[in-house]
């Protein structure tokens, strides 16, 4: 609602009523945040995360160093923590599914670094061998096939970190990652991979958004 007879001192246009100006600014603030996050609307949370899981995950999330921001606005870096959904598990084998944001346009983001964090509960003074298998969708998007695997020697209870390679990073970039954690050689009494609220496995990834299709001005 333009104010009668008033002129905006910054640009010479008509001034707005204070309340209209406030609404306009709030709308502008909302729109610029959503635009910069490549969102069309505010996310609606379908799968709430427990406070315990959030606290644990944040303790493992490293901040971007000051001054490390990219100059080009088209490129933006972010860090994503994706919590696992557990499926098709037995005592010796745990399957973890990670859904990366479907808000962003596929192909417009690139996972540059990813690490799996998981909590292991072991009997004391024992060493266990754990195989982590990275499963990806086949060429026809039907069956999961083995892309690569890692062998880990785990000798203590607590949080463990496994840096994930290019196959897993590519799967994250496409929006979905499936991992299978398999105990090798031993039979456990109960699952050694904990998945409760405070011990929920997660993948922490560093992502570059909008950097793939840059046009360079010459």
């Amino acid at each position, binding site marked *: 609602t333009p104010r009668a007879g008033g002129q905006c*001192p*910054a640009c010479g246009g008509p001034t707005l009523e204070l309340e209209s100006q406030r609404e306009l600014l709030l709308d502008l603030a909302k729109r610029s945040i959503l635009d910069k996050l490549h969102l069309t609307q505010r996310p*609606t*949370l379908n799968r709430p995360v427990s406070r315990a899981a959030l606290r644990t995950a944040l303790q493992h999330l490293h901040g971007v160093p000051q001054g490390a921001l990219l100059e080009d606005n088209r490129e933006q870096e972010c860090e994503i923590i994706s919590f696992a959904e557990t499926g098709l598990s037995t005592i010796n084998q745990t399957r973890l599914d990670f859904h990366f944001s479907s808000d962003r346009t596929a192909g417009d983001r690139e996972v540059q670094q990813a690490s799996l964090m998981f909590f292991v509960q072991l009997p004391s003074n024992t060493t266990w061998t754990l195989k982590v298998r990275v499963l990806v969708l086949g060429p026809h998007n039907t069956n999961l096939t083995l892309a690569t695997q890692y062998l880990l020697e785990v000798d203590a209870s607590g949080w463990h970190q496994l840096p994930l390679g290019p196959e897993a990073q590519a799967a994250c970039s496409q929006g979905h990652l499936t991992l299978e954690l398999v105990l090798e050689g031993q039979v456990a009494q109960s699952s050694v991979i904990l998945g409760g609220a405070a011990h929920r496995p997660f993948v922490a990834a560093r992502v570059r958004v909008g950097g793939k299709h840059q046009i360079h001005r010459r």
Partner: protein
Amino acid sequence: GIDCQGGSRMCCRQEFFVDFREIGWHDWIIQPEGYAMNFCIGQCPLHIAGMPGIAASFHTAVLNLLKANTAAGTTGGGSCCVPTARRPLSLLYYDRDSNIVKTDIPDMVVEACGCS
């Protein structure tokens, strides 16, 4: 940059804070609690717009001095009060898949204003 105070009419930075709770966004934005957007407002008469420190850049200062020393109407165009320094907004939020995302959005917070 100059912060707006009382009845100041010259180019200055007006503070404007968007409280995420007030707009109902506190459920998906974990931190911070709000966005210090700020904006620029005020007049930029040519004799002020050419002053170092108030001009948005050295180029602007020279151009506005030229304008101020030339007969009105021959060079055309006024001067506007615009942001001259901005800083990023760091956000920690939940996306649609309940993942936690930490990102820095560049150029979101107006730190200082000057004349274009």
